[in-house]
C-alpha cells in the first residue's frame, strides 16, 4: 500500500517549502561546515574530502527537512548552523 497520507504534509505549498528549504538550507549548512574545516586543515584536502562527505551530508540534511515537524525550527536551524559555521570565515575575510 502507499504511505498513509494522514502522516504526510498536506499542503502542496508547505511541501514545496520543505523541498526548497532542504535543498538550499542543506546546501548552505554543508558548504559552510566544510569552509569551517578549512580553518584547521589544508583547503585542497578539505575540498577533496567534501567530494564524498559533502554530497552525503547534503542528502541527509535534505532528508531532515521532511522529518522535522516544525517548519520554523527547520528554518532557524539551517540559518543558525550556516551562520555559526561561517563565523570564522566572516571574521577572517
Amino acid at each position, binding site marked *: *500500500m*502507499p*504511505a*498513509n497520507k*494522514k*502522516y*504526510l504534509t498536506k499542503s502542496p505549498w508547505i511541501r514545496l517549502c520543505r523541498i526548497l528549504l532542504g535543498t538550499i538550507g542543506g546546501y548552505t549548512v554543508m*558548504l559552510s561546515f*566544510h*569552509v569551517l574545516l*578549512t580553518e584547521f586543515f589544508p*583547503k*585542497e*584536502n578539505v*575540498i*577533496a*574530502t*567534501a*567530494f*564524498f562527505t*559533502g*554530497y*552525503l551530508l*547534503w*542528502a*541527509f540534511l*535534505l*532528508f531532515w527537512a*521532511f*522529518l522535522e*515537524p516544525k517548519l520554523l525550527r527547520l528554518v532557524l536551524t539551517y540559518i543558525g548552523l550556516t551562520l555559526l559555521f561561517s563565523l570564522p*570565515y566572516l571574521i577572517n575575510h
Partner: protein
Amino acid sequence: MDQRKYNIYFHTHTISGIIIAALLFVIFFAGSFSFFKDDLTAWQKGKSHSHVQSQADFNYVLDSMGTKHHLLGRNFDFYILRSGQETYVNMSVSQDTTISKPEVKSEKSKGRRGRGSKNEDSAYFLHSFADKSQSSYEEGYNIGEFLYRLHFLAQLNQIPIRLGTPFGYLIAGIVSFLFLFALITGVFLHWDKIKNNFFLFRPWSKWKTVWTDMHTVLGVIGFPFQLVFAITGIILIVNFALIGPFSKLLYNGDQEELYQDLQYNRKMEVTYSYQPLSKSFDVNAFVNNWMKEWPESDISRLYIRNYGDKSMQIALETKPKSNANFAGSGYVRMQVLDGKQLEVKSPKTDATYVDWVKSLVYHLHFGDYGGRTLRIVYFVLGLLGCVVIISGIMIWLVAREKPNIPTYKRKFNFWAANLFVSISLSMLPVTAFTLIMLKFSPTINQSLIYNLYFYSWLVMIIYLLILRDLTKVNKHTLVLSAILSLGVPIANGLTTNLWLWNTLQAKSYDIFFIDMLFMTISLLSVFAFFKVKKQGKTFKILK
C-alpha cells in the same frame, strides 16, 4: 516504530524513486556495459588489444603532422586511452604570431575534455599506435563510446539548455543525487526488518511479494555498491556544484587555481621566445626514459609546449598500475633546451591526500583495479541494480491498483509504469540489435550509431506500449533478447570470420569475451522465458 516517521520514509523513498526510475535504469544498464567499453570497441573494430603490445610512438605522430602542418610554436596534448593502444591528440595553432593568428579561445576551456577548437589550423583526432591510423572523433566513435556516454546521458546535451553545465550532464547529476537520497530513505525505511528479512525470499508467493522481496533483499545486498556509485557518480558528473562555490569562497573565484591544487590541471605557462631551438628533440626517448624510471605505472598524458622554440617544454603524467599502488600520480616537466627538470613527482612515493581521494573515486567507479574478473562482478552488481529499479516500479504500480483509487489515477499510473518498463526492458534487445547491424555496416560513425540505437529503441518502445500488457512486454522482450543476443556472435563470425573458436585461438580475449557475454545473456533469456511461460502468473491491470 514511529508511525509518522515510517510513513515519511516511505513516501520520500517512493517519490524520489519513481521520478528517477526510468533514467536511472538507463544509467545503470548502459553503465554496466561500459565496464567492457574497451572490449566492445575491440569487438566492433575487429581489432583485438589483448595480445598486441605496440609501443607508443609519439615521434611518428609528430613527424606525420609535420608533413601536413608547420609545427613550429605549436602546443600538443596527448590523452592516452586506458588500453595504452590509442591516444587522442590535440594540436593547437602556433604560438608564433608571425606564423599564425593567435587563438581566440581562452586558456580556460583547455585541458578539460575539450573536443578541440574549431580553428582550421588546429587539429583534434584519435591516433592508434597499433596500426598508425588516424581518425576524427566522429569516425573513431564506436558502440563502447556510445554506451559509455549514454550512461551519463551525454546525448541529451544536444538540447540547448545550459544551466552551468550541459543539459544531459545536469540531468544525470540530478538523477544521481536523487538516487543517493532514495538510497538513504530506503535504508531508514527498511531498517527495522533489515536483519530479519535479510535472506527472505518467497518466490512462490503472489507477485507483489516476489517484487517486494526482490526490491528489499537485492537492495540491501547491493546497497554498498550502489551507494558508492551514487556518490562517485555525482562527483564525476556534476562536481561543479561544489567546485564553483568553493572556488568563490576559498580561491577568490579563481577556478583554475583550485583545479591546479586538485591536480586536474597543471600549470604550464611558457612565454614564446621567437628563437628557434637548434637541436632536435626525441620525444620517445624522453618518455621511455621515464617509463623505465617508473616501471609500475602507465603513461596517461603528454604535453608539449612551444614546439621547436627555445622555450619548448615537455611534461609527462603517469598513473601507477593499480596492483602496484592504489593511489598516486607521476608528473615530470622538463625544459628541452638544457634538459633541466622543472618539476618531478614520483607515482610511487609522492602520493598526496588529494591523490588518494581522486584514485578512490576513479577506481571505485570504473572498477579498473582487479582485471576482468572484477569488472564482471561489477557488471552483475550493476544489473542487480537494474532489477531493483524494475521491481520498484512494479511495487509502485500494484500498490496503487486498488478499487478505492479513482480510475483516471489508475490509468495514469498504468501508463507511467508501462512507459518506464518499456523503456527499460527494450534496452537489451536494442543494444544487441545495434551490435549486429554495426557488423553489416560498411562505414561506422557517430550518426549511424545514433540512428541505429535511438530509432530502434523508439520503435521498440512504441511497440511495447501498444501491447498494453506488462506480462506480454516481458515475454516479447525476452524472446527478442534471446534471438538478438545469440545473433551477436553469429554476426561477428559471418562478417569477419572471427568465430568464437578463432578468437580464442588467436588469444583475442576481448572479442571472445563480448561474444561469450552475449551468448550467456541469450541463454539466460531463454531460461527466463520458459520460466515465465510456465510459472508466470498473469496479473491484470485495468481490465
